[in-house]
């Protein structure tokens, strides 16, 4: 019992310290780190959080999240970019009011998510994984082949059309960072809240035993569909932020590489706990940044290849050694300590990636 309390206290402390560091980040980190690692990490983390939410509380590992992120981004890009002389020519260029576009893009993504979820609501486990992967690939092929909304070359200039309350994020990257931070905190609190509601509790019951929940009178398919819709909502937030951050959308946003990347992030952080999403994202980007800086242009020494080979081996190692990722390592450390009967001296381990970003 005391161990659990110590662990919760340790996690809260780390959480508060991380949040304080995050708030002060623009003063601590270089502009490059702030924009490329922290902002992108927060945005990717939100996407990974939607994946982890479905997996941790619903037992549904969805590879559709990348597709939904891309759909939200593409919807926003098509709705808000304007037809100006010499400007962007790709996409529908509807030129809607950015606030309206933002709301419409998120609603559209949630709607598509509900349809996806309804189709997949009776599939479980590995079937669900495969089915949701096909969603993403179909979304990828759709935006690639339908030249009306984009085609294979990117739709650019999305970041110039932001709602008034968001402001100019092209010039002021710190602003975008704080927007991403607020969104991440919102998503985290939202998930923590939802899983405590009656809906969230019955959703977790369905994860553990769908047949029993059905015989108790719960509508299993409806619960899973609605939860998938919520996952789509979180993915849509990530997609919109990504569109603002990167400024352009291309089909590769939701290609197979991007899908696997989001899965790697989620697995790296740990599929059982929401916090893992952001830890995984920061770890992934930190590894990516470090490795890419050190690989010669001719490829890796001896075996050849690029960053993908490195992250592939890291992913393989994580899945073999600790399938629950870094958060799993952290939990296991406490478990070991509990058995030994003394609290661990080093409480940094599980949050090492957050610590690493301070250097």
């Amino acid at each position, binding site marked *: 019992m005391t161990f659990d309390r110590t662990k919760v206290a340790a996690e809260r402390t780390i959480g508060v310290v991380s949040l304080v560091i995050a708030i002060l980040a623009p003063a601590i980190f270089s502009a490059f780190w702030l924009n490329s690692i922290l902002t992108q990490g927060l945005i990717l983390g939100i996407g990974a959080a939607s994946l982890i939410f479905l997996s941790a509380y619903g037992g549904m590992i969805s590879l559709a999240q990348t597709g939904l992120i891309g759909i939200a981004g593409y919807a926003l890009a098509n709705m808000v970019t304007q037809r100006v002389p010499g400007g962007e020519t790709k996409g529908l260029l509807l030129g809607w009011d950015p606030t309206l576009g933002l709301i419409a893009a998120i609603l559209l993504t949630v709607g598509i998510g509900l349809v996806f979820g309804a189709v997949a609501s009776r599939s479980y486990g590995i079937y669900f994984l*495969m089915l949701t992967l096909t969603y993403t690939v179909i979304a990828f092929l759709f935006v690639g082949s339908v030249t009306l909304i984009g085609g294979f070359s990117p739709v650019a200039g999305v970041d110039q059309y932001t709602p008034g309350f968001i402001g100019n994020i092209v010039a002021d990257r710190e602003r975008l960072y704080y927007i991403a931070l607020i969104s991440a905190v919102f998503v985290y609190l939202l998930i923590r809240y939802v899983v405590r509601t009656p809906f969230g509790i019955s959703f977790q019951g369905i994860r553990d035993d769908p047949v029993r929940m059905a015989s108790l009178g719960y509508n299993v398919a409806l619960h899973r569909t609605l939860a998938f819709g919520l996952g789509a909502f979180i993915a849509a937030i990530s997609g919109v932020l990504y569109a603002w951050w990167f400024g352009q959308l291309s089909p590769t946003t939701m290609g197979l590489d991007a899908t696997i990347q989001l899965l790697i992030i989620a697995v790296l952080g740990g599929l059982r706990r929401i916090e893992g999403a952001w830890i995984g994202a920061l770890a992934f980007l930190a590894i990516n940044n470090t490795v890419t800086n050190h690989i010669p242009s001719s490829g890796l020494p001896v075996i050849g290849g690029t960053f993908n080979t490195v992250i592939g081996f890291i992913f393989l190692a994580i899945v073999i050694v600790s399938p629950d990722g870094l958060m799993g390592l952290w939990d296991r450390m406490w478990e070991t300590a509990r058995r030994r009967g003394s609290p661990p001296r080093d409480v940094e381990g599980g949050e090492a990636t957050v610590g690493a970003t301070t250097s």
Partner: protein
Amino acid sequence: MARGAAVAVVVFAFLYVLVIANPPPEVGGDWRTTNTGSALDDPSSFLETILDGLTFAGLLFIVASGFSLIFGLMRVVNMAHGAFYLLGGYVAYEVQQRMTGSGFFLSGQDVNTFEWLVPWLVAMACIAVFGLGVQQLLLRWNQGQDLRQALITIAVSVIVADQVIAHFPRTVPLGTQKYGGNAVTISWPGWTNRLVDLHIGGVHYSLARLVVLALGVSVGIVLWLWLQKTRTGMVIRAGVDDRQMTSAIGINIQWTFAIAFIVGSALAAFGAVVSGSQSSVSQGQDGQWLLYSLVVVIIGGMGSLAGAAVGAVLYGLVFSFAVAYLPITGSDCCQQYSVVLTFALMALVLAFRPQGLFGRVA
């Protein structure tokens, strides 16, 4: 109600193809305008569309049956199936290049049957050994953890795909930049390079495509005979039904798993060589063929040979009919929506049978 709507959509699609569709007029066009015209107006195009669908289905079946075989027996979703495919295609290409030695401007007439069969066999053998290695090293000690195994094969696919791009093709034609994973073509034997008169509706059809169809059917027959008529096949079927009971009566199930993985991986390479001869092998196809395999087995039902065949035929036909018969009302409508029909087909099947057409409830 949903089912009624689904049936209505299917009936409408049939009517559209059979009678409603119109060939393009001199100017303009409406929602009935298609490239080919309805089956009544233009029976030879209709027949060609069916043949296109079936030949594509033959190819789909070759690749997807390997995927389905591995899943059916071992409950391993081999997400590296597409990567195996890609590696197999490039191995075959390199072998054929070495054998013919005529460089990149290899015309189909110059290749004899032997020079196609050897690359085909070498590629299948290489990928079979590679697949066996992956299975023994990475998938043997964690049986039953299907999700973890899927993640492991994803990691393998990431590594293999990146390594293929780094190392293949070994050389590129002068004046071409080698960026890794360039599109390359394996050549069919010369004798396939002609059109056959089918004596139905005046259709002359590519012999190479008919060979693809024949290969797909042969793979199906051989697999069926193997699974139904031999002792190994019997053990595999027993393993699919009840793995624990099969090993409890003294059968070495590990040995069977290894065989299934060898055959399944070899089929990925088989499909790659056929597809590479028909069109080309290039980077990015790993994801494409993984998707094809997934869709085919999701439609047909995992682990069922008949399901893979039916899934391949349905998918192949929907694909070819969508390309031929979707309306072309404007310059940018609507053929590119054929991708959406793939989703519609899958949704339709899953709405009626979540486990696929021939799948059993796990």
